[in-house]
């Protein structure tokens, strides 16, 4: 009946860990969101080309890999802001530790850039590439290679993108002391949310009708899968041990209930789902609000899970 501290004494010596973890703020939220978004953008851009079997015609899609890399750089900028020892970044790349998701992440982030660049060079029109200062001829040569080995480039992009998306979730999952993050579902959940936010971002751009219709269907599927994964996460918490049940309680009647259900599930998933179904059924024109709600929901998902996770801990177990 009594709440006794279970955590070891050592964690108590760190002021940022006790009584609750508060070392990760908006920087990490934004980084996780942008990471997922970029993963979604890269996968969807490549998947659209694979499905249509032709290079993208709309300018938005041709430039999208580069836009994605820009967003990723912004995200890594916020991650860098969060680092305590900013000059030690290079140490990530002195070793590869297969058991550390942070190490995986550092290397995946490094792989995303060449993959995105190859994808972009292969889809941008030659006239644009010719105008690249100084490196125009090199760009054209790489573009030619990228087009000859198109399916390799596309599948590599998809694989690297999926790695990026899953890693943003697994990163949290390995911090086992935060019981809220002890769920294997987080990786796929963040990947699916990334796909959904990526589709929403693309839907806000100027696309042709076929691309729009495909993305709309994929976004619907991603939202449905995301709902299932959230249900799986909550069921896992509810049917798990004492620590999992405590983690679930924060979202099922606890302090994060209102934000999680109202912002993530209703605003970010159910309402866009209803509006996209309406769009599909009744051929209504797209409004910017639907994708905007999906983006808000994706951001809220990361922010709430991050905050709730930092609040949680074994010390709260009865």
């Amino acid at each position, binding site marked *: 009946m009594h709440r006794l501290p279970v955590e070891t004494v050592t964690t108590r010596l760190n002021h940022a860990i006790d009584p609750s973890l508060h070392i990760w703020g908006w920087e990490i939220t934004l980084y996780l969101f942008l990471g997922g978004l970029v993963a979604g953008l890269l996968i969807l851009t490549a998947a659209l080309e694979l499905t249509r079997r032709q290079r993208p015609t709309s300018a938005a899609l041709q430039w999208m890999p580069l836009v994605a890399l820009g967003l990723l750089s912004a995200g890594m900028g916020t991650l860098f802001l969060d680092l305590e020892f900013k000059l030690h970044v290079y140490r990530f790349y002195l070793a590869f530790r297969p058991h550390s998701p942070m190490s995986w992440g550092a290397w995946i982030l490094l792989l995303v850039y060449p993959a995105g660049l190859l994808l972009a060079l292969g889809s941008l029109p030659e006239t644009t590439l010719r105008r690249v200062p100084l490196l125009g001829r090199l760009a054209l040569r790489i573009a030619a290679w990228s087009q000859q080995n198109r399916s390799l480039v596309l599948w590599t992009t998809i694989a690297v993108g999926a790695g990026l998306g899953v890693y943003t979730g697994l990163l949290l999952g390995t911090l086992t002391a935060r019981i809220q993050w002890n769920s294997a579902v987080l990786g796929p959940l963040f990947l699916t949310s990334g796909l959904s936010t990526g589709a929403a971002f693309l839907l806000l751009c100027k696309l042709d009708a076929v691309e729009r219709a495909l993305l709309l269907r994929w976004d619907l599927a991603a939202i449905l899968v995301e709902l299932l994964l959230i249900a799986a996460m909550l069921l896992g918490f509810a049917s798990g041990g004492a620590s999992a049940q405590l983690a679930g309680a924060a979202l099922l009647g606890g302090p994060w209930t*209102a934000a999680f259900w*109202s*912002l993530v599930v*209703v*605003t970010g998933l159910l*309402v866009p789902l*209803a*509006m996209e179904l*309406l769009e599909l059924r*009744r051929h*209504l024109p797209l*409004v910017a*609000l*639907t994708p905007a709600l999906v983006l808000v929901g994706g951001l809220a998902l990361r922010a709430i899970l991050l905050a709730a996770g930092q609040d949680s801990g074994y010390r709260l177990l009865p």
Partner: protein
Amino acid sequence: MSDQSPQDAGFWNPYFAGFMLGLVLLASFLVMGNGLGSSGAATRLAVSAAHAVAPQTIEHNGYFSQYFGPGKAVLDDWLVWEVLGIFLGAAMSAYAAGRMKLSITRGPRATGARRLVLALLGGILMGVASRIARGCTSGQALTGGAVLSLGSWLFMFAVFGGGYLAAPLLRRQWK
């Protein structure tokens, strides 16, 4: 369910809409024990925005200090979530009816800029008024009216009185 006159086109019959409104309000009473509202959320949103800019001034204000203290969060309130719901519900309704469009609704002779200035001005007036009266047309007239609160009924008559008194001055805006 819809009417045919140009201004009314596409909307529900007012009596049917009122009946549905009454059922929603009743559901709110039956589940939560309290009615609907909307200006309270505007207050909380404005206070939390102002608090981000000037925390000391807001926390020591005689009226706003009620929103602060240990264990309190300005935005942690039923009304804030309810107003989020109003926004989502109205958006879905407008979208499904093909009415969602970025625009400025105005009378036939009013200009857009002037309309926005007056909208802001009217909003400010209503913000002050709803704090003085402890609620707006949703929180006082509708909610209090349905549970037969004396003050709410007087409030409602006063709203119509004030509106009818000021209407001739604003004829150019709307006619």
